């Protein structure tokens, strides 16, 4: 079982990593990109056809459906044209594209700076408010239970299989337990991991979040990024970053403008976008750009206007100082004679 051992080693070894310390006035706070693991074959979520029959399986199925077709919540909880799977690629299963299996294991996550703990469902609420420019469903809503159930199933099914327990069903959990996430003592890991993995290692499952990307040789440049965009991105995402709708169905995500994520979303940070782009774009032919190109095009994309930060207070300068003082983004900064955020599209288009 060399692969299993490698996984165990990776997860246990990760317990020595430094914890994130970032100001966190929001729930879209930054998770440090991870050094890329050499071999990620250790973990494969189960097939959708293996979701169990019955009420618990129905929650998982609903979670998948919401994940790949979030637009069914348009106007209710979703205020733009995005779907969860636009960033969490392969329906939340792709390593280093913010996979839901690794995220599920990481929550609840404790934050030293404000002494606050967010559980998994609360973190997903953050996605609705910022990434989806919408309004989060209630913590115990069928939607959040379903997305939590689907994420849990991705994790637990993959773990059971990794330890040779392919014939075992994913254990059912209560709605309350599903909302919590996997980073609590009551959440038992299967097989040899039972009682072995320290809680503070659960936030570092290899493949989590995004892969670390080398710092660029030159400071990221929106002007250079515009050329990268034109050459490599515009055909799919549109010359104005508007994405693409087919037969009235949003298919390719909008990258800026009224239909994209708002100024409070984690993806608005240049470093987050650069790591995502470098590792995952163009879809189907990843790692196509140089690191410098990825940084430049991330700077270009994230220096266009988008929906306002829903935490907007008083004015752009105050909002920037309160919520964006330490982030690697363009909110409140001047570019080409205009302050980013001052011409933002309306925040939260759902009532």
């Amino acid at each position, binding site marked *: 079982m060399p692969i299993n051992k490698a996984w165990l080693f990776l997860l246990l070894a990760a317990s020595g990593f430094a914890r994130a310390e970032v100001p966190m006035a929001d729930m879209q706070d930054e998770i440090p990109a991870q050094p890329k693991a050499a071999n990620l074959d250790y973990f494969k979520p189960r097939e*959708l056809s293996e979701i169990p029959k019955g009420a618990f399986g129905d929650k998982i199925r609903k979670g998948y*459906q919401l994940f790949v077709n979030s637009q069914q919540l348009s106007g209710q909880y979703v205020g733009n044209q995005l779907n969860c799977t636009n960033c969490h690629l392969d329906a939340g299963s792709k390593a280093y594209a913010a996979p839901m299996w690794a995220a599920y294991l990481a929550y609840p996550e404790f934050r030293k700076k404000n002494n606050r703990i967010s559980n998994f469902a609360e973190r997903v609420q953050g996605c609705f408010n910022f990434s989806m420019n919408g309004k989060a469903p209630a913590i115990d809503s069928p939607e959040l239970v379903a997305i939590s159930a689907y994420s849990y199933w991705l994790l637990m099914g993959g773990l059971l299989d990794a330890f040779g327990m392919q014939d075992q069903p994913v254990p059912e959990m209560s709605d309350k337990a599903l909302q919590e996430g996997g980073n609590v003592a009551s959440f038992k890991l299967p097989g040899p991991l039972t009682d072995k993995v320290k809680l503070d290692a659960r936030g570092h499952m290899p493949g989590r979040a995004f892969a670390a990307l080398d710092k660029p040789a030159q400071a990221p440049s929106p002007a250079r990024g515009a050329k990268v965009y034109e050459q490599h991105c515009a055909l799919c995402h549109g010359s104005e970053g508007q994405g693409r709708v087919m037969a009235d*169905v949003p298919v390719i995500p909008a990258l800026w403008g009224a239909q994209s994520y708002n100024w409070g979303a984690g993806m608005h940070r240049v470093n987050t976008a650069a790591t995502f782009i470098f590792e995952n774009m163009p879809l*189907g032919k*990843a790692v196509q750009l140089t690191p410098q190109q990825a940084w430049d095009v991330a700077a270009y994309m994230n220096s266009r206007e988008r929906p306002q930060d829903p935490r907007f207070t008083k004015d752009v300068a105050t909002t920037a100082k309160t919520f964006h003082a330490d982030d690697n983004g363009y909110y409140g900064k001047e570019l080409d004679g205009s302050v980013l955020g001052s011409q933002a599209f309306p925040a939260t288009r759902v009532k």
Partner: protein
Amino acid sequence: MNKHLAISSLLTLFLVNHASAVEVPEAAQSCVVCHGAQGQGTSQGPKLAGLTSLYMNAQIEHFISGERKNVVMTLMAESLVDLNVRQQALAYYAEQGTAPELQKRGDTLVQSGAEKLYYQGDPHRSLPACYSCHGPSAVGGGPFPRLAGQQSSYLKDQLVAWQKKQRSGDPDNTMGHIASKLKDSEIQALADYLSAIQ
């Protein structure tokens, strides 16, 4: 040019005699003999109905530049130098055909074969869902061709052409890269599946 005029005259004659019930704009008539009066495709050429003007125009340019290879089509493409006429023809074919019943991602979870590849991809081979670019029920849009209802033999030939680098022209060779990962059996299954979407 005389040769093209001759072809056009022949086609006009053909139309008057055999397809007078259909009002094909003059600009599109040179396409009819191979692609059909409604762009439905014939044994000589693929379906054009429902493809976007943007996509078809790019293909004409590819036939002229040699990124796509077909002796007859290159000749025809070179004859479409008047961009105004070309756009009229493309606009006509883009409007033909009927939209298939839409199946969105997530509507069906238990899938296998080509349908699964289309809606879920294969993460273990870094194959994205075809849906990600070709959309619900393969309707296509913008630079992405409609695949729904296209001839199976044509779809198969194109995927093989991408694999063998006989077809190119997309940025970063993304489609060629994806096609190179497909097995022969998957290409056949996808071609059959997509052609059956009505």
